[in-house]
């Protein structure tokens, strides 16, 4: 029984990464209609930027948490301005391909310069060590990850769903020309939003740097699962992907305990089931 609690908690921790990553993806998909295949690569960049900040600039983890998303976000905005922008109004597929190409380039460049096995990034001193919870040993850093990502998720949700911004964005996805004709500078808004989504990916990257290796392919391995989360949550639904992210972490944790062989598969089984029962995902709007 104790072991079960431990698995639940661990699942929650993983869930917070899924939530954060799929949140960024959901923002970009739901608001901009871009299937951002480069998300994994940008997540990886977040981790690398944190690494550079520390090792080249002596800038610590806490600043990295702020700076890396901004730096990668700006990179994302440049991508949007120079490339993605030209795809508005076209089928999803083109955005997917373009971002896939971008992901290949980014990963390739990083691999070329930093090898594929990765670089070490240490847990910040303040968050080192762990607590014995009785039923498990909880590393402090993991606790921090859960709390922090939950806060970021909720803040993003508020920004998009509870302010006018969300409505502008959704409308702009449907008919950018008309929204622009209402007096909103749609291109700028889209660029900023893409930056926001990308920044969220980078933030997840910084958070994961001390836990996982900082490797060029760290995001490529994750991206498909994160896509699944977004789909299960209902594409483009912010709250849907947050909840699904956390829930999937927990379900995966339980699978790892009861039937570990299936823990990579469970997400896809879940996805098939959810889509069969609710064709637009758990909280999805009609397609």
């Amino acid at each position, binding site marked *: 029984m104790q072991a079960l609690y431990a698995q639940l908690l661990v699942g929650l921790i993983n869930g917070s990464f899924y939530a954060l990553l799929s949140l960024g993806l959901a923002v970009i998909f739901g608001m901009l209609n871009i299937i951002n295949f480069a998300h994994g690569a940008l997540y990886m960049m977040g981790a690398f930027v944190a690494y550079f900040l520390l090792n080249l600039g002596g800038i610590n983890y806490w600043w990295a948490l702020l700076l890396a998303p901004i730096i990668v976000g700006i990179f994302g905005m440049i991508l949007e301005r120079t490339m993605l922008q030209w795809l508005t109004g076209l089928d999803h597929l083109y955005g997917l391909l373009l971002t*896939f190409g*971008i992901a290949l380039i980014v990963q*390739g460049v990083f691999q*070329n310069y930093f090898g594929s096995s990765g670089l070490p990034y240490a847990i910040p001193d303040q968050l080192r060590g762990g607590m014995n919870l009785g039923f498990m040993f909880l590393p402090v850093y993991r606790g921090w990850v859960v709390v922090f990502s939950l806060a970021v998720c909720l803040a993003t949700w508020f920004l998009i769903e509870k302010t006018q911004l969300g409505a502008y964005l959704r409308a702009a996805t449907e008919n950018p020309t008309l929204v622009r004709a209402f007096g909103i500078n749609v291109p700028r808004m889209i660029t900023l939003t893409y930056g926001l989504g990308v920044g969220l990916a980078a933030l997840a990257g910084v958070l994961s740097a001390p836990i996982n290796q900082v490797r060029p392919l760290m995001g490529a391995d994750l991206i498909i699962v994160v896509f*699944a989360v977004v789909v299960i949550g209902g594409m483009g639904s912010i709250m849907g992907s947050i909840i699904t992210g956390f829930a999937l972490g927990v379900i995966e944790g339980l699978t790892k305990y009861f039937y570990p062989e299936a823990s990579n*598969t469970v997400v896809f089984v879940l996805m098939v089931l959810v889509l069969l029962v609710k*064709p637009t995902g758990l909280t999805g709007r009609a397609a």
Partner: protein
Amino acid sequence: MTTLTDDTLPATPRAMRDEMIVFVVMALLLASVPFTGVYPFFVMQALCFALLACAFNLLVGYGGLLSFGHAMFLGTAGYCSAHALKVWALPPELGILVGVAAAFVLSIVTGYISIRRQGIYFSMITLALSQLLYFIYLQAPFTHGEDGIQGIPQGRMFGVLDLSKPTVLYYVVLVGFLAGFLLIVRIINSPFGEVLKSIRENEQRAISLGYRTDQYKFLAFVLSGTLAGFAGALKVFVAQNASLTDVHWTMSGEVVLMTLVGGLGTIFGPVVGAFVIIAMQQYLAGFGQWVTVIQGAIFVVCVLTFRRGVIGEIAHYFRRSL
């Protein structure tokens, strides 16, 4: 769905004549490969992928259904054929049949599950199904996991054609490809194909005309899946192995790329696309670590500048449908 294909092109009788001319030219070019010194294995491999891409294109380019799991048919047929040839020691023609049958059954099952889903959800459910299958194949004993099924005997087709001779194998693969290709062209230009196109254009309207659209989409899915399986079965003879690569999602992605690079919804596009991508993989293999960067750059350039794909751009330029 916003249009993926270049629909500004006319579909006139002239188009069908153009298609026949290009087809004959293509067949002659391919038939002369063994005499040109071009390396035949490369061409054979490309032919298998070309057939796969054509099958995929049938579904997306004409049925409007973007499958993101087409590798599952390729891989399943590959594994089943390989197993039949190696373990059951069946002759090549039966080995192919086993693979195609497996893909056929799989496409019925997956089609049944996925066909009612719309747009991006269809893509995602096919992706999920193929991922499920990937993990099953990763663990199933008969696939030999990471190592794959290796050293598959090529055997004698119909007891006479010695497939271990590259030239014989080449022509067998070529005939297989051309047959598959012609079937696809016929499907596209058939009464069924017309209905499929109209469903893609406006499904609600098709329903209101009394079409049970799910049935048409299902048939298209099964045809496409089975033909993709045929490609997978042929590929076994070329590569002489069946591995996880063929069921991984990146393979499904590659098929999409091939089709797009060549021109989605064009008849010859997927063939050209397959050749371009396979050539890229072959010739970039020497570029060391820059391979992925170059590949990525090519995709980016393609999407930004020649969105209609090679054939699509040509067809558009001459205002012909190819």
